[in-house]
């Protein structure tokens, strides 16, 4: 579904992402892990079109999206959340979802004016469903800036879903969460997969990654050092070395 081929991003002499190739299959949760500064966030930013790539290609459902503008990537069915929350804090919960709703519906001219002026009842219902999914049913008219941290994280996830994605990129969604919240998130991600959404999960919190993912790729210094099921990754020597530091280097 998503295919990165020999993707590289250099900042001057720093090879933030170096010759990275990986494939995310439809319907799976794919984990991308690695120590701090290993190039995970850069990879997400390359896929979404925030940063121009130095070399390599990105294809999504067979279409080349290597240098696509972010809003084009969203229209193609790619949505993301941010590592540090970026909600529209001066808009309400409902408006945050409403502004994002149905971005993949296309732009049929017959519905265009209506869509932009008021939207239709199906669209409104899908927003209400998402508010319920995020567990924010009684908070719909609250300004996003007034929500608690955990609620903001849930709203960010719901807002990304509102665009109607096929593939969801989650950039450290569990950062700052307690164990109970991580368990809830785990449950939500499984529900999304059941709905037919594919997930690329960039994460530090191992409880989440090891439990929920189908396959994992490990990055270190911008290079992929391992790929496999959670069990294989946990027993991989190169991975343990990257995380714990090798004894002869120390």
């Amino acid at each position, binding site marked *: 579904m998503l295919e990165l081929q020999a993707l590289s991003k250099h900042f001057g002499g720093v090879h933030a992402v170096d010759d990275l190739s990986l494939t995310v299959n439809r319907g799976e949760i794919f984990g991308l892990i690695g120590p701090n500064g290993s190039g995970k966030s850069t990879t997400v930013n390359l896929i*979404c079109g*925030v940063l121009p790539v130095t070399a390599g290609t990105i294809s999504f459902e067979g279409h080349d999206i290597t240098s696509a*503008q*972010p*809003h084009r990537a*969203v*229209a193609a069915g790619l*949505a*993301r959340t*941010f590592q540090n929350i*970026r*909600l*529209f*804090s*001066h*808009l309400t919960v409902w*408006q945050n979802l*409403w*502004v*994002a709703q149905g*971005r*993949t519906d296309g732009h049929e001219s017959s519905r265009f004016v209506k*869509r*932009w*002026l*008021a*939207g239709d009842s199906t669209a409104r219902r899908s927003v209400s469903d998402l508010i319920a999914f995020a567990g924010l049913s009684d908070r719909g008219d609250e300004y996003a800036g007034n929500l608690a941290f955990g609620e903001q994280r849930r709203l960010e996830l719901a*807002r*990304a879903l*509102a*665009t109607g994605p096929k593939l969801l990129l989650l950039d450290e969604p569990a950062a700052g969460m307690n164990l109970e919240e991580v368990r809830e998130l785990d449950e939500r991600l499984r529900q999304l997969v059941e709905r037919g959404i594919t997930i690329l999960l960039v994460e530090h919190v191992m409880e989440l990654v090891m439990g929920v993912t189908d396959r994992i790729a490990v990055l270190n210094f911008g290079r992929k050092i391992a790929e496999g099921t959670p069990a294989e990754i946990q027993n991989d020597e190169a991975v343990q070395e990257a995380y714990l530091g090798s004894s002869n280097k120390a």
Partner: protein
Amino acid sequence: MVDFVQNTLDGFFIGSSYALLAIGFTLIFGVMRRLNLSYGPSIMLGVFAGTMIYIQLEAGLVFVACATVLGAVLAGIYVERICFWAVGRGAVLASMVSSFAIWMQLEELVTIFFPERTYAFPPLGDFSLEFGPFFIRGAHLVMFLCAAVLTVLLHLLLYKTRFGLALRAVSENPLAAKFMGINTGLVVFSAFALASAIGGVAGFLIASADQQITPLFGLWATFKGLIAMTLGGMGSIPGAIAGGLLLGIIEAQSTWYLGAEYRDLVAYFVLFAFLVFRPGGLFGQRLATQNRLSMQRV
């Protein structure tokens, strides 16, 4: 006392046109966080388009109004493409300086094609109303009504439509807006065209109240809009309205009590007083964070 109330009335009505100019500035500043110094001159170009079809073709008022708005929108789009699209996203100073350069360019262009100092502009509402001791010029009444209707329409657009929601989202966080599938370039472009159209209406109303037009109108409109926006609080539309009305009233009072030659002096004095003692403007508190944001980016 009668004089004071009469001045306040006059100032209020004229101030409604300043409010429109300030709203246009605010829209552009709100979505781009950048100042467009060429805003006034692009309106001036529209007004000259209006005066041209009035003089050359003896067109009616409606056509003159359409030509003015159309001219202002086209000039506004030209400014956006050059100063805010072609000049990169991060280059705040470069866009401001280039908007100054485009200002000079537009002014030169107009003085080449319109070498006389002043040109006639068709009058609007050549009547007047009297309420007891008070007196209202018809042109000013029409000016106020148009400004009020336009403001209500803009409010509906910004707060009741998804386009308005997208515009507010872009204004708050352009990056997140992109990832919600919003074509931010298109939103900025539309905001510019919208601001220019509002400016075009303001230009038409002012020029037809004065019944004449000079190439200095661009400078004048940029100043009035900028001062009114600053008085009200940068980035706030209610602030722009309040700032415009306040500026109109200040000008009317100082013209009456001190004389016309002191009018602008007093207005600048009030501007500096605001910048020193209340830098956020009338509607400043709520926008404290936004102001901090704009400071950071400049």
